[in-house]
C-alpha cells in the first residue's frame, strides 16, 4: 500500500499531463485529418492527370488489392480508374514504391485504358542525390516512358532517348536510380494487370 502511494505521489503529474496532451493531439488530428487525406489524394490525382490528359476524374476501382512488394512482403494498393468527360475509361493509375539509391522512391504509374501502354510515371516522393539521381524527374528520362508497351522494360546505357520502345536509356551518373524506377515499374505493372484481368476490368491477353 505504501508503495502504491509512493508511485502515485511521484507520477501523478506525468499521468495527468499525458492525458491532457493525448486529448490535445486527438483534437488536432480530428480537425485536420480530412484535409491531410484530401491533400494526398489531390497530389496523386494531379500527377496522374498530367499523364492521362484526357481524364476528367478518377475513381477507386480496386481498393486494397493484394500485391507483393519488391522485397517480397505482402502489401495493399489502390487502383484508380480515369474517366473522361463522357464517362469512358481512358486509363488506370496506381501508386507503387521500391528502394532507390538513397531512399525509397514512390511513384504514380499511369497506363492506358486497355492496359497496353504505359503513359508515364510521376514521382510522389524520392530522395535521390541532387544533380544526379534526382534527374529521374527530368523530361529526358521521364518522356522515354510515355507510350512504351506495358511489359518488361530494359535499361540500356547508350542509345537514342527519343525512340519510344521497351529500352530505356539510363541517366549518366545515376544508373542505380534509373534502374530502380524500371525495377519498380516492371514489378508492379504485371501484378496490377493480373489483378484487373482477374476482376474482368481489362481484357485477357490473347
Amino acid at each position, binding site marked *: 500500500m505504501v508503495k502504491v502511494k509512493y508511485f502515485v505521489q511521484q507520477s501523478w*503529474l506525468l499521468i495527468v499531463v499525458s492525458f491532457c496532451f493525448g486529448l490535445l493531439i486527438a483534437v488536432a488530428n480530428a480537425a485536420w485529418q480530412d484535409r491531410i487525406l484530401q491533400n494526398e489524394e489531390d497530389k496523386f490525382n494531379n500527377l496522374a492527370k498530367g499523364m492521362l490528359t484526357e481524364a476528367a476524374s478518377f475513381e477507386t476501382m480496386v481498393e486494397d488489392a493484394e500485391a507483393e512488394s519488391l522485397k517480397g512482403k505482402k502489401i495493399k494498393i489502390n487502383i484508380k480508374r480515369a474517366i473522361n468527360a463522357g464517362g469512358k475509361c481512358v486509363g488506370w493509375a496506381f501508386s507503387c514504391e521500391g528502394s532507390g539509391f538513397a531512399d525509397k522512391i514512390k511513384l504514380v504509374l499511369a497506363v492506358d485504358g486497355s492496359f497496353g501502354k504505359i503513359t508515364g510515371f510521376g514521382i510522389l516522393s524520392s530522395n535521390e542525390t541532387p544533380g544526379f539521381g534526382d534527374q529521374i524527374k527530368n523530361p529526358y528520362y521521364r518522356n522515354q516512358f510515355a507510350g512504351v508497351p506495358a511489359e518488361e522494360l530494359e535499361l540500356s546505357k547508350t542509345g537514342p532517348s527519343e525512340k519510344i520502345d521497351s529500352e530505356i536509356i539510363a541517366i549518366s551518373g545515376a544508373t542505380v536510380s534509373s534502374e530502380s524506377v524500371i525495377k519498380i515499374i516492371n514489378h508492379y505493372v504485371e501484378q496490377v494487370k493480373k489483378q484487373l484481368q482477374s476482376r474482368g476490368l481489362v481484357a485477357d491477353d490473347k
Partner: protein
Amino acid sequence: MTNDTGLKAGVYKETLLRGLWRENPVFRLLLGMCPTLAVTVAVKPALTMGLSVIFVLLCSNIVVSIIRKLLKPHLRILMFTVTIATFVTIADLFLKAYVPRMSEMLGPYVPLIIVNCIIICRAEACASKSSLGVSIIDAAGMGVGFTLTLCVLAGIREILSTGAVFEVAILSLQSQGGWFVPLAAMSMPVGAFITLGLLLGLVNTITKRKTKG
C-alpha cells in the same frame, strides 16, 4: 517599484539578446546541428523549420514554466520529452494539412524536432527555473536566433546551388544565357558542412575582435 520594473525590463532584454547573438543556439552553442545541416538547402524549408521550432519552443517553455514547481527532479526529462513530443506532433499535423509541399520537403526532420537539443536545453536551463515571462522571452530569443541562422545558411546555399533566393531568380544561369554556373555540391551535405564551417569561423573572428576591443 519603478526600480523593480526597470530591473525586469533589463532581464527581459538581456534574455532576448542572449538567444539572438551571445548564446546563439547554432553559432555559439552548436546545438540543433541535425536540422541546421539537413534543411538548409533552400530558404523556404529553412524558414518553415525555424517557425516550427519557435512554436514548439514557445509552447514547451510555457508549459514547463507553469508546472516547474510540481516537477519531480528525477522525472523532469520525461516530462520535457512528453511536452515537446506533443507540440511537435501538432506542428507536424498542421504542416501536413496546410503546407503539404513544405511538409514533404522537410520529411522526417519535423518529427525529429522532438530530439532537437535546443528545446530540451531551454526547458532544462531556463524554463524549469524561471518565471513565465522570462521563459517566453527566452523561447522567442532562442527561436528567432535559430531561425535567422538557418535562413542565412540556407540563403547562401540556395543562391550558390540554384542562383535564386526564396525561389526568386537573382543570378542569370549559364543554361539560360547568363554567366552563373550553379554549384550542385552546395545543395548536397558537403555544401552544408562547408558553409556552416565558414560561418562559424566568421562568427568566432568577430567575437574575438569584440572581446579584444
